[in-house]
């Protein structure tokens, strides 16, 4: 287990970034509400849901294969907004889940969404389907649902691993409009190749703010952007230090016994 005392520089960075985010959230809650740029994948949600309704086909939402975790909760938050749109159109949602702990949350999210859209009668507890907690058994279950029920819109959001391409390609073959988002950078190329829209990196975490226009969430997004500025400044300073020292023939990774008042400074930014 890592501790702050193993690397104080990282701990200080985490503390600063956390403070910036919380500060921006509090500011947004007090009325300083920022605006954020358009995200193509999220603008396509209504189009995808509308198309599914016109075709008389359901909408598929897969919240990844992890149990309750940050990506799964974030996916559920986004699915709540999408399900509300689905309910408004009077359409039907299918949400296969890979972990038993997600069943209750999934049901709650869909029930809330259908109720807030004024169509509680359209919600059925059979819409949230626990298939298996085995990765490929789950993948084959979802592929089976796609083949049999032919959803016209498919949203793959959350933590995905090797099964990502199986789900995305099967959806593509079924002719569904697909929007995907995952924090697993290794799976992003597969989604980019097989899906119509992909939320890259922190766009996934910005999605709920974008959809709800909620001041708290918008403040959090701006806090993240300020934190990115801090990171960029650190990277630039680190690069300059490494370049200057490199020109003097000093390898920053092997400074050895080099004693200098700048040592702590260099350690902080370069290492």
């Amino acid at each position, binding site marked *: 287990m890592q501790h702050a005392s193993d690397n104080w520089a990282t701990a200080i960075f985490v503390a600063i970034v956390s403070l910036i985010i919380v500060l921006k959230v509090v500011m947004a809650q007090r009325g300083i509400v920022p605006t954020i740029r358009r995200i193509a994948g999220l603008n396509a949600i209504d189009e995808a849901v509308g198309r599914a309704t016109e075709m008389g086909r359901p909408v598929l939402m897969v919240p990844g294969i992890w149990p309750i975790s940050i990506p799964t909760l*974030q996916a559920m*938050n986004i699915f709540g*907004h999408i399900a509300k749109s689905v309910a408004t159109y009077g359409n039907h949602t299918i949400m296969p889940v890979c*972990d*038993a702990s997600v069943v209750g949350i999934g049901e709650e999210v869909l029930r809330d969404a259908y109720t807030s859209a004024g169509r509680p009668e359209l919600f059925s507890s059979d819409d949230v389907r626990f298939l298996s907690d085995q990765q490929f058994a789950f993948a084959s279950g979802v592929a089976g649902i796609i083949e049999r029920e032919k959803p016209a819109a498919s949203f793959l959001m959350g933590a995905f691993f090797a099964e990502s391409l199986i789900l995305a390609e099967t959806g593509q073959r079924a002719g569904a409009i697909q929007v995907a988002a995952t924090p697993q950078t290794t799976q992003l190329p597969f989604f980019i190749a*097989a899906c119509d829209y992909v939320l890259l*990196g922190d766009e996934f*975490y910005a999605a709920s703010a974008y959809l709800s226009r909620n001041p708290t969430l918008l403040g959090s997004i701006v806090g993240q952007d300020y934190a*990115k500025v801090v*990171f960029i400044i650190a990277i630039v300073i680190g690069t300059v230090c490494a370049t200057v020292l490199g020109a003097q023939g000093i390898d920053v990774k092997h400074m050895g016994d080099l004693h200098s008042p700048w040592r702590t400074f260099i350690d902080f930014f370069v290492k």
Partner: protein
Amino acid sequence: MQHPINHNFFTAIPQHGAVYWLYVFATVAAGIGVLALLQIIPTRYRKATIALFTFLGGLYYVAEFFLPTEKGTSVNALTEYQPFVGTLSQVIGAFTVGLGVISLVGMHTRSVVRQRAQWGYSACLIVAFLVMTVFHLLDSYYGDHVIIGQGGILRAAITNHDVYNFLFKGGLNSLESAMFALIGFFIISASYRAFRIRSFEASLLMISALVVMLGQVTLGTWLTGGLPTDGPYANFRFENMAQYILLNINTPAQRAVAFGIALGTLATSLRLWLSLERGFYFDQES
């Protein structure tokens, strides 16, 4: 050096005997009691209670991370309580397993009873579920029990363990491997669409992918094998170009995406920890 873990009420749980069962019973009873209590208390207090426990749970990990470790060790005063906190999370998670089973069996039983479209798949699932459960339990308790004795076409007797192994390794594992193997075919069809030259970006992707692929295989090495291994012309060897693309273009891009994801995770964690999160299944903001 790891600090020895002290044994106390929070860290030591007896593994055998009546006390063990007392712990199990007390934990289940306490869990049911807490769930019942959460159902009884008014909604406004329920949310405050959940927020309080979420904060306390998160505070433990934050404090454990920031508290300096004892000299020469990798532990501090809070480290020894980690198994206790981890077990608490597992116990809460264990309560949800029943939900999954109820959802799975309930849905497919309804499908069979009402003979919905393709109800045969549901019947298969229920049969497989029951057979696997029964033979796993038999294997756990009576693994060596002989079901069919040796003789006739059987060279050896068949035990409960053999049947479970046949179902698990011969059935489940083989089916999972087959699903995994499908990825190879899906990669081809996905790559075909991704690499179709339709725009400048797609062309760039196609060229760089071709260079990286050639740089990874013997054919690529052979094609540019005539070029010197050192000097300016060595830059045109496929393996060197592939390495350059992977290390200097691909890796920085992946790291940039990873930075964004890490910040997003941190921000979402903070919102959840401090109960600032708003949206479905959380408080709606007024």
